[in-house]
């Protein structure tokens, strides 16, 4: 990675600065003796996961007490705003010790030197995760910038009862998906199979990832931006075509109108991820027990891959004066069976650690999917097929550009290819402005 050299140099200075700061802290703090190795440490943790304070209590009363490492949760709002907040705090040198970060935000945090390399402290954590998941926290280098927490493998959700009523079969390929949408539209003009929504860029990124897109890669010392590569173009044209011919709806998700369409059966399927049951519970409360989950349609019969939409990790900041202690906690939180069970119960997360996906916490299907008893077994199998991802240092810019360009294109039913080009151009322009070298 081109920014690695710059980063390494910074880490060296950061360590020097940190050491200087610890000596100072040793004079001032009474409850914090400033031991940089480990031992007595008070850590703060920015996270948005509900119920995280209860999970952290387990640490503070158990392993944390033995090692004299106390963690305090400071609950935050999720999303890109938190990344901005972390970077602002880092600028002032006042970042917390630990942060929750979505995978696609990690390169942004790394290139701003906000999160630390914890390769030495992460121990044997690597073996607990699927390679594709772990790779997102190393950014393809020898460093480890975070421990994976939860993942969002993508799946196809559909109304079992209505599929039967309209004589539809579950599409196994995207061609079948398009045929299903057309058939439904022809027979029931008022009902849509699903909608193309541009208000969550993660969905499109996941679909492109499934098709084999690599949005950010490195070539020597330069970045290569593949947002309009053949795979992504295929995905964009596929959905653009369906929207243009009116085979699917073009209204955004997560609106009251969308909720109503799902709740009343005017939209009968949703391309989503493993966390969809939670969303459906509030969006379509009257349809409990009527949905089923299936693998995402494939681009060819022989393939079996999925993308990911969502998911996050626990990272240690460069501002932390107890990086070793913080990394220990991060590893415990995301690999210890007791912690993972508590995370599933209190926070409702789908764990990245592979063994936890089939643990007792996931023996029962989500309440909303009580009819599909094998929900989590199937989910775990699908999670194994997740395609590798390739995030870059300004995913937020690409995502914003996507929302603008594709939002307009979907509304006007115009060319998605042009929107994709705009997204790519905006992203490259921003990277150049930030001083990254980009190969054309």
């Amino acid at each position, binding site marked *: 990675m081109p920014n690695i050299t710059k980063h390494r140099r910074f880490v060296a200075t950061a360590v020097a600065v940190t050491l200087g700061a610890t000596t100072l802290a040793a004079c001032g703090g009474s409850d914090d003796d400033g031991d940089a190795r480990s031992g007595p440490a008070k850590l703060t943790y920015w996270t*948005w*996961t509900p119920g995280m304070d209860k999970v952290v209590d387990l640490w503070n009363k158990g392993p944390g007490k033995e090692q004299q490492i106390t963690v305090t949760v400071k609950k935050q709002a*999720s999303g890109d705003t938190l990344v901005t907040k972390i970077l*602002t705090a880092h*600028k*002032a040198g006042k970042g917390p010790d630990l942060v929750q970060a979505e995978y696609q935000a990690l390169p942004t945090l790394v290139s701003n030197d906000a999160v630390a390399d914890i390769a030495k402290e992460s121990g044997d954590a690597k073996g607990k995760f699927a390679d594709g998941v772990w790779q997102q926290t190393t950014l393809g280098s020898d460093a480890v910038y975070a421990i994976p927490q939860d993942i969002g493998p993508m799946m196809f959700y559909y109304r079992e009862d209505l599929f039967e009523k309209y004589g539809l079969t579950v599409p196994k390929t995207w061609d079948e998906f398009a045929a299903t949408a057309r058939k439904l539209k022809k027979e029931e003009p008022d009902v849509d199979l699903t909608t193309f929504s541009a208000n969550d860029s993660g969905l499109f990124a996941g679909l492109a990832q499934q098709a084999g897109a690599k949005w950010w890669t490195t070539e020597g010392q330069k970045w290569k931006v593949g947002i309009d590569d053949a795979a992504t173009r295929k995905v964009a044209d596929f959905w653009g075509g369906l929207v243009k011919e009116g085979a699917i709806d073009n209204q955004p998700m997560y609106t009251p109108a969308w909720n109503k369409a799902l709740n009343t059966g005017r939209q009968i399927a949703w391309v989503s991820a493993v966390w969809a049951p939670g969303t459906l519970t509030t969006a379509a409360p009257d349809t409990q027990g009527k949905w089923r989950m299936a693998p995402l349609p494939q681009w060819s019969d022989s393939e079996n891959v999925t993308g990911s939409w969502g998911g996050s990790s626990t990272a240690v900041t460069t501002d932390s004066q107890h990086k070793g202690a913080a990394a220990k906690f991060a590893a415990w939180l995301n690999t210890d069976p007791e912690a993972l069970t508590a995370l599933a119960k209190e*926070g409702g997360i789908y764990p990245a650690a592979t063994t936890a996906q089939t643990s007792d916490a996931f023996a029962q299907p989500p309440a909303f999917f009580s009819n599909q008893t094998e929900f989590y077994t199937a989910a775990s199998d699908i999670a194994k097929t997740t395609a590798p991802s390739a995030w870059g240092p300004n995913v937020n810019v690409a995502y914003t550009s996507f929302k603008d360009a594709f939002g307009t294109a979907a509304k006007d039913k115009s060319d998605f290819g042009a929107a994709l080009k705009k997204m790519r151009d905006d992203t490259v322009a921003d990277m150049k402005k930030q001083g990254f070298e980009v190969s054309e």
Partner: protein
Amino acid sequence: MSSLAVRKTAPAAGTTPGTAQGPPLRRRIALVPTLTLLLGALYCLLPVAWVVIAATKSGSELFSTFTFLPGTGFTDNLSDLNAYREGVYWQWMGNSALYAGVGALLSTAVSAISGYALAIYRFKGREAVFSVLMAGVLMPPVILAIPQYLLLAKADLADTYGAVLLPLVLSPYGVYLARIYAAAAVPADVVEAGRMDGASEWRIFTRIALPMMVPGLVTVFLFQFVAVWNNFLLPFIMLSDDEKFPITLGLYTLLEQGSNTPALYTLVITGALLAVLPLIALFLVVQRFWSLDLLSGAVKS
């Protein structure tokens, strides 16, 4: 028959003189302005009505029933909100009251004293100070939030109550308003008379000028209170500890809980409704101070 006729005509006869004496009831209703105002009122009140009605709906009714049909979940929503993380909502409400109350009070005090000084005293650089203030009025506070954060972080004040209160103390708009009001409401003659009687400058300010400025200062206080109560960006950047969050920030964390947890819409809507009530109460209470303009006629020329 005749008595009936008399009874019938009697009231008519009684009223006739009245109508004849009084001015003809021909107050013209100005149609266009009235309609415009009605439309404006509708525009402002519809969202409020939406919040009120949506707060009564349970989670399953929120998006499925007719928008303006009251639901059945209001008490459940209230108790859910009350129970959410052991009542952290009330902590946020208290924090908001602290930030808005103390912040507005401090900034009103600063505005009063500096507005008075700028209006009454003539000194070198007065216009320069005032021009800088005017520039401050034009500067949206949003732009200043990050520099203020970096400054306060240097002073080790980030993530404290002070971090939110300090930047609020000096409100350029408040000082501007106080100066304009002091210039109009505190006659130079009164200040001069005070000096003749041997009162100190401080005594003149607190005992004579301040009471005259009360209606203006109430306005400054209200403006500031509402601005702080609704403020989002400054506390968002300054605070990381959610026990110190004001209500705006707290409700935002309920909405953005990450992709695997649904947003708590019903709680946010109920919380937003409750958050408006203190503002309405404050306006009702403070309203009477606006007419407290007793001393404005102290000097007649």
